[in-house]
């Protein structure tokens, strides 16, 4: 009995030491997260409840909901709704184009997969704004796209869609390929051995395995496109105001409270979406 208690005590001590060392190892990450994410976010939330002198930009931390009330006015509701629709359209396009591409890449041999991933990522080596300016030149009246295809897309919705998809598809493809890459190759052979055709394998094996990658890619593209303003401004002509352009134009100045309120609400919405997605995923995994 006494020996058993002694063993248990030793094990608990070891576990406690391991827990302490794990906590110690997590300290730098926690500190970084605190300094780079949590504290700035708290500043943003505090700023959303403040007032800014439009002349001197002095901040009066008034703890007022004024910015939130303003955000709910028809003008900004319209801006929010349009930005959400714009982000959703971008996500749908990236999923529609990026998923087949990722599936195809994941089925390649190691060597060709690497080559294809480098090709997918290659445009990202060029500065984002420069790439969008390049599209502007290509799509302009008398430019190569009009000359070859006879279409005039600059400052039209197709130009924005093109700019968004070319900018964000690589960010979608990468996690999907990574997710599929981790799947054991035997499962595809097993599906074939059990008589599943290509479509059945796609629906019952491949896509479920890619689910986490698709969710990650969707999240990344959704978050980034929600705040995007360079593409709509340069390729869409900047005719409509989006959350991104509002934040970029005035977020650092006289509209800091409004920008703070918009950011807070967007973050909470995204966090809620992520939480719901995680819960749904857990439920599916439990049923499986």
């Amino acid at each position, binding site marked *: 009995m006494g020996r058993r208690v002694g063993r248990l005590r030793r094990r608990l001590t070891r576990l406690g030491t391991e827990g302490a060392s794990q906590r110690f190892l997590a300290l730098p990450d926690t500190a970084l997260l605190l300094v780079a994410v949590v504290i700035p976010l708290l500043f943003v939330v505090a700023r959303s409840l403040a007032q800014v002198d439009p002349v001197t930009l002095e901040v009066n931390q008034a703890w007022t909901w004024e910015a939130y009330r303003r955000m709910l006015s028809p003008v900004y509701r319209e801006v929010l709704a349009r930005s959400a629709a714009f982000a959703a359209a971008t996500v749908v396009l990236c999923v529609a184009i990026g998923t087949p591409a990722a599936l195809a890449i994941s089925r390649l041999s190691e060597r060709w997969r690497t080559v294809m991933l480098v090709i997918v990522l290659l445009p990202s080596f060029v500065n984002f704004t420069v790439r969008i300016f390049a599209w502007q030149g290509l799509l*302009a009246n008398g430019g190569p796209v009009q000359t070859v295809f006879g279409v005039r897309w600059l400052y039209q919705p197709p130009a924005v869609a093109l700019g968004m998809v070319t900018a964000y598809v690589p960010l979608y493809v990468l996690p999907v390929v990574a997710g599929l890459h981790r799947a054991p190759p035997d499962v595809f052979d097993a599906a074939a051995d059990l008589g599943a055709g290509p479509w059945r394998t796609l629906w019952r094996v491949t896509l479920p395995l890619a689910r986490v990658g698709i969710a990650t890619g969707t999240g990344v593209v959704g978050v980034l496109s929600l705040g995007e303003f360079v593409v709509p401004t340069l390729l869409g002509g900047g005719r409509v105001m989006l959350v991104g352009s509002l934040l970029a134009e005035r977020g650092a100045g006289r509209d800091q409270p409004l920008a703070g309120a918009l950011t807070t609400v967007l973050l909470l919405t995204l966090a809620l979406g992520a939480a719901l997605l995680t819960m749904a995923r857990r439920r599916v995994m439990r049923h499986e």
Partner: protein
Amino acid sequence: MQVSRRTLLAWAAAAGPAAWLVACGDDDDAAPATTAPGAAPTGTLNLLNFAGWAGPTTYADFAAAYPGASVNEIAWVSNDDTVTKARGRAGDIDVALVDGTTFPRLAALGVLAPLGNVPNMVHVDSRYRANDWDPGDEFFAPTDHGRTGIVYRRDLVATPPTSWADFVSLAPEYSGKVAMLDYQRSVMGNLLVMLGHPGSSTDAAHLAELQDVLLGLKPHLLAVSGEVGKAVATGDAVMAMCDAYDAQLALTSNPDVVFVDPSEGQVGYLEGLVILDGPRNDLGRTFIDFFLAPANYAAFINNVASPYVQPDNAGIDAALRQSPVINPPAEVVGRLSYHEFLGEAQAQWDAVWDAFGAA
């Protein structure tokens, strides 16, 4: 509760490493210019300016002319950003390019240092001096000005617009091929002028009238952008509300582009350099004087092709001097009104502009 810079620093200190990041911009760390009595100042001047808004070798020439001195150009972001950087010298800026709308905000903050003795100010024409915001030329050294007019394609527009009223009435005819500048003050100011109101009016009735005009124009617009001149030059748009310097670029790239100074008058801006009071005032003063020296000023204007404030400067390219866009006739300048500081009324302007943007 006012959040002062000191409070901010206290919060940041509580956040540990963040304190270091914030304190990086503190004045105490700034290296002051050293000036022996009667000697030229040395040190690095932090200049808040439009990227490249100088002669091709202005900064190098300054460093060569004043050994030990150099210029660090910091890119201008927005008027609000200028105010933020100037407040408490948060950006460690020594000299900033500002216009008549930002100047009063800096003056209200009490961050401006007197220009003092700038001998080359004599080359600035009297039309651009003694402005409402600095009647004694105590703080503001004018460098350039601009105005917004109409550009159109003579080969694509049958009835040439000569006024803002023409611009608005022709928009439905060329629906989807009309572009507008994305600068609130210019767009709203010029349309207020068209309506017969002051270009910086804050009257609620005037702004409501203006909003109706803007919302009427919106369906016909191809783009609201900073690059409308280019759109007209390429033919994506046939007509645009456009800044003079942008128009000059469009004229140069396509001879069918025409710039019109609307008959009702225009709003415009006058830009100039100011010294933000700090450890390098003498260096700032020396740089401003150097910048306004005729040869250096001519190099600047020849580089940026902007309307200028030294009309007698023979170093400015003949092509620019002969361009009515860059060197407007006296009657055009006479009809010009500069953007005025809106103060608290800026919120009303923002509301109209946002309604236009959201429509």
